[in-house]
C-alpha cells in the first residue's frame, strides 16, 4: 500500500518542532541516565556510588584547604586577610549544621585532636570511616622549593635540598626526589573522615541520597521514547520532504536548490560550531561556582545551541531526502557541474578535432593516420632499443599494434558487410538490412551502409508496389471474367434451348443462328482476354521442361490436319532430320503454335500453301510459318501484335484479335523471341526459342 505524504506545511513545521524537542529531551534524559548510572544500572550501594564519592572528594579538598591554613597558624605564620576569611568559610562550611561530613584531625605524634566537626564524638554516627595521613609543610611549599644537588654541600652524596622563599633549608632528602614527604618527612596529621549516616543536614550527601534512592528509572523510558520519537519524526519528515499538498510531483524549495556540496559544507560547519558552543557552555556551567543565574544562563545557552544544531540536522536530512527524490542529489553540486563542464569541453574539443580531420581530403587523412601510426611505432621502437630493459616499450608496441590490427579487422569485416549488401541488392534481395549500430568507429562506412539501406528499402518498396498492382490487375481480370462468364452461360444455354423449340419462320431460325454464333464468339473472347492479360502481366506459371520441338510440331499438325483440309490449305513442312530440344512449358508452346495455325486456318487464302520451317542456328531454334492472307493486310506488322488489332476486313470473322498478342507474350515469357513480317499478302510469323 502506497502512503501519500503530501502534508501541509504547518504539519511539517509542527513535526519538525516535535523532533527537535525530542532530540533535546533525549539528550538531557540520556545525560540524566548517565549521571544516575550507578543507582539505575550498576545496582551498587549508596556508599560506593559516584555521587557519594564526588561529595566526599569535594568536602575532603575543602578540609585539606582548611588544614593547610591551620598548619600555617600552628607554625605561627601570619595569615593574610583572604586566608583568614577563607579559613572561617571552610570551617563553617564543614560544620555539622552545614554538612553531614564528619572529620577528626589529630596530631600524628601525640594523638591530640586539632580540628574536628564535633570533638571526640564526631565520627560516632559514621558507618564507614576513611583515614589518611598528611604532611603539610613541604606539600604546601611545593611551589617555592628549589632543589639543589651536588657533592660540595653534601659531602659527596646526592641530596635533594628544599628551600623556603627566604632561602633557608627546610628539608634535605637523599637522592633525586620529587615527592619529598614520601621519602623523608613523617606524617604530621592523621585525618579521619566520613559521612554521618543520619544525613541530618541538608547538603549534597542528602541530595545525592535522595536522588540515589529516587533515581528514576522512568527517565530511561523517557530517553528511549524521545530517541524513538526523533527517529519516527525524522523518517516522517524525510518521507514528506519535497511533497506539497497541491503538487503531484516533488518540489524543491530554495534551500534544496543550493548546490549540495556547498550546502553540506555550510550546514556541517554550522552544526559543528553549535555543538562546540553547546559543549563549551555546558562545561562552563558544570565548573562554575555560582549556583545562581550564571549556571542557569550557561545551561540555557548550551541547550539552545544544541536545539539549533538538532534543527539543522533535521533540515539537512529533509533536504537530502528531497534531493534524492528529485534525482538532483549528485547533479546539483558544484563538483558535478565542474566535471560536466570539463566533459563538455573535452567532447567539443574532440568533435572539433574530428571535424577538422574530416575536412581534409580522404587521401590526406589516410596519409595523416599512417604517418601518425609510423611515428608512434618509430618512437616506441627507438625506446625499445635505447632503454636498458625494454619491457614497457615492448608491451606498448605490442598493445598499439594489436589495437591497430583489431581496428583493421573490424573495418574489413564491416566493409565486407556493405559489399555483400550491395551484392544482395543486385541479386534481387533488396530487403536485407545492414546493422549500422556497430559501425560507430567508421563514420564514412556507416554513412555508406545507411545509404545502401535506404536504396534497398526504396527498391523493395517499388518492387512490392509493382507486385501488388500486378496482383490486383490479375485479380480484377479474374473477377471480371467470372462476372462475364456467368451471364454468358445463361445466354448460351437459352439459345440452345431456343434452337430446340419448334419455331415457325425461317427468319427466326436465322436470327437464332446469329445469336448462337455470336455467343460462342463472346465465349472465346472472354477466354482469350483472360489468357492475354495473364500472359502479359506474367502471372502465368511456367513449368519449363526439355521438349522435342519436332514432336510438338507433329502433334500440332495432327490436331490441325482436318481443319487445314476443311480450309482448303496445303501444309508444306520442313523439319530437321534429328530431333531438336528446347526448354519450355509444353502447354504454353502448344498455345503459341495453336494460335499461329489457327490464324492460318482463319485468315489464309483457301487453295494456297502454308509453309512451316524449323531451323537451328546459333543455338536458337526458329520456327517460321508463312501463308498468303486472304484479305489485304493494310496495317504494319508490329501493330498486328497489339491486342484486338486485326486486318480491317477480318473484323467480322471468328477470332478475338488476341491470338498474336498472346503468342508474343507467351514466347517472351519463356525467354524466346516473336516476330511478324508482312510482305504484300505474304504473312510470316517467326518464333525463336533457345536450344536446350
Amino acid at each position, binding site marked *: 500500500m502506497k502512503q501519500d505524504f503530501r502534508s501541509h506545511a504547518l504539519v511539517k513545521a509542527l513535526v519538525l518542532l516535535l523532533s527537535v524537542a525530542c532530540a533535546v529531551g533525549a539528550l538531557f534524559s540520556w545525560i540524566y541516565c548517565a549521571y544516575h548510572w550507578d543507582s539505575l544500572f550498576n545496582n551498587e550501594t549508596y556508599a560506593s556510588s559516584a555521587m557519594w564519592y564526588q561529595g566526599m572528594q569535594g568536602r575532603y579538598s575543602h578540609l585539606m584547604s582548611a588544614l593547610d591554613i591551620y598548619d600555617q597558624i600552628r607554625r605561627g605564620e601570619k595569615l593574610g586577610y583572604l586566608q583568614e576569611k577563607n579559613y572561617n568559610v571552610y570551617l563553617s562550611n564543614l560544620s555539622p549544621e552545614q554538612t553531614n561530613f564528619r572529620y577528626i584531625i589529630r596530631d600524628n605524634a601525640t594523638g591530640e585532636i586539632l580540628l574536628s566537626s564535633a570533638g571526640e564524638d564526631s565520627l560516632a554516627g559514621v558507618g564507614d570511616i576513611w583515614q589518611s595521613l598528611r604532611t603539610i609543610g613541604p606539600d604546601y611549599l611545593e611551589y617555592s622549593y628549589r632543589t639543589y644537588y651536588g657533592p660540595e654541600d653534601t659531602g659527596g652524596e646526592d641530596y635533594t635540598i628544599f628551600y623556603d622563599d627566604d632561602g633557608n633549608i627546610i628539608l634535605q632528602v637523599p637522592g633525586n626526589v620529587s615527592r619529598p614527604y614520601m621519602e623523608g618527612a613523617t606524617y604530621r596529621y592523621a585525618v579521619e573522615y566520613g559521612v554521618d549516616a543520619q544525613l541530618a543536614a541538608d547538603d549534597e550527601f542528602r541530595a545525592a541520597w535522595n536522588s540515589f534512592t529516587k533515581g528514576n528509572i522512568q527517565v530511561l523510558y523517557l530517553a528511549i521514547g524521545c530517541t524513538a520519537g526523533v527517529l519516527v519524526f525524522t523518517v516522517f519528515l524525510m518521507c514528506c520532504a519535497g511533497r506539497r499538498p497541491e503538487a503531484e510531483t516533488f518540489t524543491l524549495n530554495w534551500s534544496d536548490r543550493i548546490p549540495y556540496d556547498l550546502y553540506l559544507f555550510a550546514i556541517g560547519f554550522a552544526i559543528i560550531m553549535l555543538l562546540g558552543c553547546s559543549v563549551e557552555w555546558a562545561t562552563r556551567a558544570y565548573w562554575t561556582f555560582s549556583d545562581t543565574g550564571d549556571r542557569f544562563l550557561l545551561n540555557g545557552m548550551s541547550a539552545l545551541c544544541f536545539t539549533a544544531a538538532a534543527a539543522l540536522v533535521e533540515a539537512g536530512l529533509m533536504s537530502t531526502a528531497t534531493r534524492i527524490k528529485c534525482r538532483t542529489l549528485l547533479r546539483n553540486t558544484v563538483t558535478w557541474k565542474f566535471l560536466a563542464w570539463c566533459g563538455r569541453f573535452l567532447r567539443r574539443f574532440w568533435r572539433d578535432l574530428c571535424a577538422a580531420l574530416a575536412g581534409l581530403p580522404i587521401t590526406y587523412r589516410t596519409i595523416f593516420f599512417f604517418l601518425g601510426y609510423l611515428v608512434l611505432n618509430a618512437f616506441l621502437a627507438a625506446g625499445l632499443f635505447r632503454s636498458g630493459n625494454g619491457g614497457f616499450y615492448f608491451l606498448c608496441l605490442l598493445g598499439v599494434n594489436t589495437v591497430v590490427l583489431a581496428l583493421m579487422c573490424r573495418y574489413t569485416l564491416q566493409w565486407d558487410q556493405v559489399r555483400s549488401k550491395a551484392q544482395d541488392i543486385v541479386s534481387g534481395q533488396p530487403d536485407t538490412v545492414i546493422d549500422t549500430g556497430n559501425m560507430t568507429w567508421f563514420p564514412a562506412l556507416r554513412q555508406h551502409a545507411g545509404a545502401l539501406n535506404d536504396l534497398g528499402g526504396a527498391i523493395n518498396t517499388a518492387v512490392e508496389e509493382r507486385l501488388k498492382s500486378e496482383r490486383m490487375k490479375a485479380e480484377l481480370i*479474374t473477377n471480371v*471474367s*467470372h462476372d462475364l*462468364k*456467368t*451471364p*454468358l*452461360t*445463361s*445466354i*448460351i*444455354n*437459352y439459345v*440452345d*434451348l431456343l434452337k430446340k423449340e419448334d419455331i415457325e419462320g425461317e427468319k427466326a431460325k436465322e436470327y437464332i443462328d446469329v445469336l448462337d454464333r455470336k455467343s460462342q464468339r463472346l*465465349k472465346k473472347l*472472354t*477466354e482469350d482476354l*483472360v489468357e492475354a492479360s495473364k500472359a502479359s502481366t506474367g502471372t502465368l506459371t511456367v513449368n519449363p*521442361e526439355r*521438349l*522435342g*520441338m519436332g*514432336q*510438338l510440331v*507433329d*502433334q*500440332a*499438325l*495432327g*490436331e490441325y*490436319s*482436318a481443319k487445314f483440309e476443311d480450309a482448303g490449305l496445303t501444309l508444306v*513442312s520442313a523439319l530437321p532430320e534429328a530431333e531438336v530440344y*528446347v526448354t*519450355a512449358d*509444353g*502447354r504454353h*508452346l*502448344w498455345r503459341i503454335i495453336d494460335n499461329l495455325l489457327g490464324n492460318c486456318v482463319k485468315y489464309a487464302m483457301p487453295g494456297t500453301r502454308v509453309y512451316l520451317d524449323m531451323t537451328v542456328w546459333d543455338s536458337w531454334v526458329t520456327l517460321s510459318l508463312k501463308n498468303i492472307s486472304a484479305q489485304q493486310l493494310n496495317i504494319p506488322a508490329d501493330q498486328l501484335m497489339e491486342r484486338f488489332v486485326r486486318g480491317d476486313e477480318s473484323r467480322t470473322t471468328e477470332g478475338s484479335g488476341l491470338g498474336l498478342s498472346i503468342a508474343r507474350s507467351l514466347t517472351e515469357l519463356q525467354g524466346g523471341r516473336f516476330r511478324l513480317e508482312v510482305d504484300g499478302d505474304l504473312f510470316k510469323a517467326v518464333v525463336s526459342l533457345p536450344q536446350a
Partner: protein
Amino acid sequence: MGSVKIPKDVIDMYNILICDDDKDIVSALNIYLQAEGYNTFPAYDGNQALKVVEENEIHLILMDVMMPHLDGIHATARLREKSNVPIILLTAKSEDNDKVLGLNIGADDYVTKPFNPMEVMARVKSQLRRYTSLGGQQKPEEEESGALRNGGITLEDATKTVTVDGEPVRLTPIEFDILHLLMTSPGKVFSTDQIYELVWHDQAYGAENTVAVHIRHIREKIEIDPANPRYIKVVWGLGYKMEKV
C-alpha cells in the same frame, strides 16, 4: 460428338441436385435434365444444397464454385464427410490450380463456364453410370483376363471391343492398337515415334503426323469433350499418355 442414348430403365428416376446462385442457370440445367428424364432439386447456395442432400436421396450434384454464404469448395468438403455421391463442379475459374483444388477436395469432375449443355449432359450420364454400375453399390462382374479398364473405358483384347461408360465404341484396328498400347501402361508417356514403331512395327522414319491424327480420331470417339480430354492427354513436345482415372 453425339449424346449417348441411355435406355430408360437404366435411368430409373435419378435425383439430381443443381446448385448455383444464378437462378437462370439452374432453370436452364433443370430443363435439360428433366428433358433427359431426371428428377431435379434446385438450391441457390451451399447451405441449401447441404439441406437438400440431408432431406432427399440425391444421386448426383451439379455445384457452382462461387456462391454466397457457403461456396462450392467448402460445400463439397462438407458433403464428402459422409457421402460419396458424384459431384460435378461448375466453375468460372479456369485456372489449373482451381481445378486441382476442386478435384482434391473430393469433386469427381468439373465443367468450366460458359459450358456447352450437351457436354454437361454427357458428363452427368458418365458419372451416374460409373456411380451406379461400376461404383460403390455393385461390384463389376467382368474381372476376367484380357480386359483392360481405366475409368469408364473397358478394352477387351479377345473380342477387340471397347466400351466407354458401358457404351460400345467402334474403333479401326490401328486405333484399337494405339489405345491398347496406351492402356497397358497408364500414366506412361509414349512419343509419336515409339507409338509408330510399336503399332506399325516399322521404322518411324517420315511418319510425320500420322500418329497424331490417329490419336485425334480416338479422342473424338471416346472423349466427351475432345478439346479437353480426360483419358488421352497430350503431353506437348513429349508424346501422349493414358491418364489414370
